[in-house]
């Protein structure tokens, strides 16, 4: 959002403790959580509908780090999605002066959760007749709009009515797509990704989740609950999902066929939502069972174990990158891909990676990791991208970054930063976006990745680096600066308003231009590059650095918040204290301090800067100081010379005294001669 955008100022004051109102209709009560709707980092609380008190509502209060799926929310607001919970309102709610949160209000599913593990299995006909229709109806609407749900799971199904007759699917907009899904619900393409890096995925991922959901409901327990995530993944790749999770179960043939269609490991052969709706017709021809990952003609030995599944090999390589580098450099992987997988293109690329990594000096861990990243991408082109300790699908790096910041996971942040900084992500993105049309949809825009690559080049500078990438890739994320965290600051006017309140209460103590604030402001404004560049030239704490910050906020105030900002003026005072201390002339310092005090009353940073005219004053002060120093030194030397010049003066006095007496003597002689002559001769 640019600075020129219309100001969206929140109301000035809200009585503390009164709860918050959304759109003047929904009163959000933070003290009344709805237990059965809790999940993830967000909080579900009761909401009262002031227009229709007979209706029961609940609200999901998002954390600042929560992802928000705007497109689905937009669709839900525009029209009711059949079979899905109703979104009634969304927006920021003010709970106190500075406690502002993003809230989504939904219609409360009065019948509670459809399924809990303690209640056991649900009968087949109930699943097919009561659960499947609303789920597929919801997915049909979403998929037709080009969207995915990514939260189809047993604990996200509810009874809409108190009589428990109508099943609905829960919301999927307040968390990162797929982030709350148990591992088993994820298809092979995203199963090995970080929960927050699973991404929007494809409609086929929802269909797969429906298959797992059915298994979950029919068996009364989470499929693969006795297996670890890794065992499930390996099993799915080795045997296929259906064989791993459903084949041994005592299921009817029609359910087996439905599950075979839903759980096919190849997303292209998996049913789509239309087939799901018409499942009775679809099972007339028994769907083929998926058999896991594609198989190579021969196996390859990696770290003491043989593999014939490229996806599984890629997965194992990411777990043991050192051994993976050795495998790459041995040349066996390239031969295996060429001869056993019969993939000439991938083989050539692996050969290129092999020669590049072999040329790198020993001990360059990053090169080895990069090589493994590129090789695993070629082995598992549809799988998530891996780098060190992060794994994510193409468009999910923004959500992953948010998670890294929420957990304050330094290692995760470092890996993501390296991905951008090294250009690895850009290289992979450009190659896939330009060569593969299907992949283009999965990626975020090429320009966004390219911009992040540029921002990371100046990662140490304020307004750039990973924080800038975070806000560019997550445009709805509020500012995460400690100063305004918890106030859901979504644009520059909001930032100035909240920061002003915080600075007023802290009497100017605080930093409104930390790394997060700088990156947020830079991403939401235009025309600040010259300030940011100037900032990067000067060390923090230096006079120019301080002045540029003040100028930047003066500009922001002029454009986005013309009202007085006494809090920022107090902050400016704190910032300028060391600057004033650098003015050596006591008189000038007093004059400027006096001018500052006068200008501070206006609460206008531009007025303060103009009145104090710091830059010119400091230059003049420096110049005059040098002059004064020269004058004082000269005066000192002169005084010393005079103090030590007694003998010199005595000699001069003798000389001058002799001259005076000589003149007097000659005068007296002439006078004597003249007077005597006049007297005696006259």
């Amino acid at each position, binding site marked *: 959002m640019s600075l020129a955008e219309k100001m969206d100022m929140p109301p000035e004051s809200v009585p503390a403790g009164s709860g918050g109102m959304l759109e003047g209709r929904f009163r959000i009560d933070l003290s009344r959580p709805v237990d059965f709707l809790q999940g993830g980092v967000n909080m579900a609380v009761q909401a009262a509908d002031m227009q229709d008190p007979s209706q029961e509502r609940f609200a999901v209060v998002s954390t600042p780090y929560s992802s928000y799926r705007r497109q689905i929310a937009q669709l839900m607001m525009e029209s009711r999605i059949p079979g899905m919970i109703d979104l009634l309102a969304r927006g920021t709610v003010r709970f106190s002066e500075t406690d502002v949160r993003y809230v989504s209000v939904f219609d409360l599913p009065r019948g509670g959760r459809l399924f809990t593990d303690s209640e056991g299995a649900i009968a087949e006909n109930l699943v097919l007749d009561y659960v499947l229709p609303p789920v597929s109806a919801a997915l049909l609407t979403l998929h037709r709009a080009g969207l995915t749900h990514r939260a189809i799971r047993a604990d996200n199904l509810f009874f809409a009515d108190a009589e428990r007759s109508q099943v609905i699917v829960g919301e999927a907009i307040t968390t990162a797509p797929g982030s709350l899904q148990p591992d088993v619900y994820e298809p092979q393409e995203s199963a090995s990704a970080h929960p927050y890096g699973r991404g929007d995925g494809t409609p086929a991922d929802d269909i797969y989740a429906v298959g797992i959901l059915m298994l979950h409901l029919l068996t009364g327990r989470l499929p693969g609950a006795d297996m670890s995530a890794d065992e499930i993944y390996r099993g799915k790749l080795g045997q296929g999902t259906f064989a791993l999770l459903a084949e041994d179960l005592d299921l009817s043939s029609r359910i087996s066929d439905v599950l075979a269609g839903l759980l096919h490991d190849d997303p292209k052969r998996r049913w789509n939502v239309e087939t799901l709706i018409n499942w009775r017709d679809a099972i007339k021809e028994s769907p083929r069972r998926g058999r896991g990952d594609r198989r190579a003609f021969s196996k390859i030995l990696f770290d003491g174990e043989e593999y014939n599944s490229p996806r599984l090999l890629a997965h194992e390589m990411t777990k043991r990158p050192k051994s993976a580098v050795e495998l790459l450099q041995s040349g066996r992987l390239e031969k295996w891909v060429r001869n056993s997988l019969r993939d000439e293109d991938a083989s050539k690329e692996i050969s290129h990676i092999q020669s590049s990594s072999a040329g790198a000096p020993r001990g360059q861990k990053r090169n080895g990791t990069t090589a493994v990243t590129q090789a695993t991408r070629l082995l598992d082109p549809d799988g998530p991208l891996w780098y060190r300790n992060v794994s994510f699908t193409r468009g999910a790096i923004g959500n992953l970054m948010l998670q890294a910041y929420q957990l304050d996971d330094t290692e995760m942040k470092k890996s993501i930063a390296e991905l951008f900084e090294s250009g690895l992500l850009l290289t992979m993105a450009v190659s896939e976006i330009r060569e593969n049309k299907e992949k283009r949809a999965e990626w975020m825009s090429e320009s966004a990745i390219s911009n992040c690559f540029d921002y990371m080049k100046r990662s140490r500078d304020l307004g750039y680096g990973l924080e800038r990438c975070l806000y560019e890739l997550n445009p709805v994320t509020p500012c995460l600066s400690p100063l305004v965290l918890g106030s859901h600051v979504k644009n520059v006017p909001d930032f100035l308003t909240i920061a002003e309140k915080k600075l007023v209460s802290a009497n100017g103590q605080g930093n409104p231009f930390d790394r997060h604030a700088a990156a947020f402001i830079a991403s939401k404004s235009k025309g600040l590059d010259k300030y940011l560049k100037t900032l990067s030239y000067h060390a923090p704490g230096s006079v120019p650095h301080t002045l540029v910050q003040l100028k930047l906020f003066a500009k922001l105030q002029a454009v986005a918040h013309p009202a007085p900002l006494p809090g920022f003026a107090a902050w400016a005072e704190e910032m300028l204290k060391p600057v004033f201390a650098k003015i*050596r*002339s*006591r*008189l000038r310092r007093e004059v400027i301090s006096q001018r500052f005090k006068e200008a501070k009353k206006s609460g206008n940073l531009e007025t303060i800067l103009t009145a104090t005219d710091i830059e010119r004053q400091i230059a003049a002060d420096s110049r005059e*100081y040098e002059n*004064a*120093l020269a*004058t*004082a*030194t000269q*005066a*000192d*030397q*002169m*005084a*010393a*010379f*005079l*103090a*030590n*010049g*007694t003998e010199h*003066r*005595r000699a*001069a*006095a*003798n000389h*001058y*005294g*002799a*001259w*005076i*007496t*000589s003149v*007097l*003597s*000659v005068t*007296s*002689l002439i*006078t*004597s*001669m003249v*007077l*005597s*002559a006049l*007297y*005696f001769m006259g």
Partner: protein
Amino acid sequence: MAKDTKKAAAKTESKVGQNIAIFWLLILSGLGIVFIPPTMIVIFAGMIPSLVAILLNTERTGGIATMISFNLAGVIPVVGILWERGQTFSEALKILSDVYMWLAMFGGAGLAVFLTWAVPVVVFSAYELQAKANIAKLQKRRAKLIEEWGGQFVADMRDIPKAPQ
């Protein structure tokens, strides 16, 4: 070395000048003794302080010249009196026996001694007063600068290398 040579040359030049003056003085004195002996008696008697000063040779040429000038200024009126009374030995002796005449002649020499001593002292005192006033002025200026620019100013002043005086 060159300075010493110059000094020596100046000294030699001065000595030559002195010798020429003494030569002319002796010629004039000789002529005076021949043609105006009473006057010369008075002059010799009255110029005794100058002769003593010359003999003591204090190397203060200016001082001797002053002494001679003042002494002569005192002697000239006495010679005028002698010439008024008639230039005879008896008048000359009469004058020399008059204490006031001695006072007039030696008074000039005394004044010369006093002025030679007193004037440099007075001038030196004036110089000292002026220097002190200047030092006070400079110190006041320095104090004002320190007051204006603060303690760091003093430290920075110390860091500046002193120019040779």
